[in-house]
């Protein structure tokens, strides 16, 4: 109970922090404009009718990608890296709650604050492509919301685990840029994954990435998706990451020396 009260307090302060710079919120939302760019290129490419997707289906797919990207954006490694390098982590460690909750609260608060800007972007896309507006129905929306939440947790767990490398190397975020490339490439952010050559699709299936964008996006545009299976795969990866993170955290913390660790 007390723990929940602490969480609520963290969330409220994080929200207040986030909304101090509201203009920034709009800008961060806008900076994720890659799906809108790809939407245009794929819409145009689908005109010939040679792809399995019609032009409007492409638009819908990338609208879904846009929403998923915005709702599952994770930056904890940069925040953590800065905390470690500047020694601010020491303050966080003195709090009577694990620092991870602090980071999670920041991420959630930002999500809530960003949501109106994301909705505006969605309507902008619908307006740019007349006839592309769609509503998948409440059941699908509910499933997709749950799946996107799961996606966020998985992404967060993956990145937070990488972040513990900060205890050993001051610039662990370069690791994140490598994993981000894999994520971009294998998640379906650049194109619907079923357009990829079969061999690449098979490789992707061994990673958690296709579940992070492609699965929820397909669900949103009204295709059949094995939701339970997606949850199982993501759950397994998340669990593994949490175990690994806790182990690395305990080892790393003993190395941490407040400044210049």
């Amino acid at each position, binding site marked *: 109970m007390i723990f929940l009260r602490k969480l609520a307090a963290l969330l409220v302060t994080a929200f207040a922090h986030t909304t101090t*710079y509201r*203009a*920034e919120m709009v*800008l*961060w939302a*806008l*900076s*994720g*404009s*890659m799906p809108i*760019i790809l939407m*245009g*290129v794929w*819409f*145009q*490419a*689908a*005109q*010939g009718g*040679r*792809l399995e997707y019609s032009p409007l289906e492409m638009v819908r797919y990338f609208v879904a990608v846009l929403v998923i990207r915005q709702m599952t954006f994770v930056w904890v490694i940069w925040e953590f890296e800065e905390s470690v390098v500047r020694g601010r982590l020491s303050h966080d460690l003195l709090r009577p709650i694990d620092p991870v909750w602090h980071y999670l609260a920041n991420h959630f608060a930002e999500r809530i604050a960003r949501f109106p800007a994301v909705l505006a972007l969605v309507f902008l896309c619908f307006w*740019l492509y007349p006839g592309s507006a769609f509503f998948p129905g409440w059941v699908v929306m509910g499933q997709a919301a749950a799946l996107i939440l799961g996606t966020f947790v998985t992404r967060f767990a993956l990145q937070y685990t990488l972040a513990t490398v900060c205890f050993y*190397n*001051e*610039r662990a975020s*370069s*690791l994140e*840029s*490598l994993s981000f*490339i*894999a994520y*971009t*490439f294998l998640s379906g952010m*650049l*194109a619907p994954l079923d*357009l*990829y*050559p079969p061999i690449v699709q098979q490789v992707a299936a061994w990673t958690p990435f296709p579940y992070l964008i492609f699965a929820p996006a397909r669900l949103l545009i009204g295709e059949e998706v094995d939701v339970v299976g997606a949850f199982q795969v993501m759950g397994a990866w998340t669990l593994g990451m949490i175990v690994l993170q806790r182990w690395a955290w305990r080892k790393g913390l003993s190395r941490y020396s407040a400044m210049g660790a």
Partner: protein
Amino acid sequence: MPDDHDRKLASPVRRYLTLLRMFASTSLSAEMEYRANFTFSVLSSAMNLGASVFTVRLFFSHGASLGGWSWSAALVVLGAFTVLSGISQSLLQPNLNKLVEQVREGTLDFVLLKPIDPQLWLSTRRFSPWGIPDFVLGCVLVVYGSLAVAPSAFAWLALVASLACSALILYSLWFIMATTTVWFVQIYNVTEVLRGLLDAGRFPIDAFPPGAYRFVFTYVIPVAFMTSVPAQVVLGQTVPAHLAGALVLGAALFGVSRAFFRFALRYYTSASS
């Protein structure tokens, strides 16, 4: 008798060249502290480029094209984009992010007091080697794509000129964006927005649907001039008109960036402005 040293300092070009060299070497030695990073940066550049080439290939492998552009033309566009991204990682990001910080903390004062053009100092003080892999790989891709048509010596020259214009356009846009920080303080992600929109430069301009997209990417964020024009120039499609357009645009934007910076300084009130 005035000694040689004084006379050397008196020649402004000489003095600026010396300064530029010193800026580069001090930044390099600072960044070299993190040498392991270089391996990462080479690796991530190569992976990034691989993923981009694969994506472009995807369009062609399904028989859809990128606005009627050939495979090699699309590669030149992607190469030009990668070159520019290298330049922005090496010069634009480190310097202009610092500008935002200096405005917020009021330390821009110290720069303004120096006996040097403040815009020059702010734009060249830092050099980060992490953009070099992108720059080199981008050049390789541009040359590889261009070889498809065996360009003349003149076309190669035009290509270099047009890439220089692209860099100038990019720099000016970036500097103008960074200057707005005088009014908006916490807004260092203005440059993130710019970076996001510049991603459109990965694709030839004709790959976008006519209308809003092409208008925005030609006239508002002129990525068409930055990456499509170099490709058109080297592949010998309507060289003079496009190159002239890019030249005029580059010069004009550079002028605007200087004027805008001077204008913004009038509103700069030191710390917490």
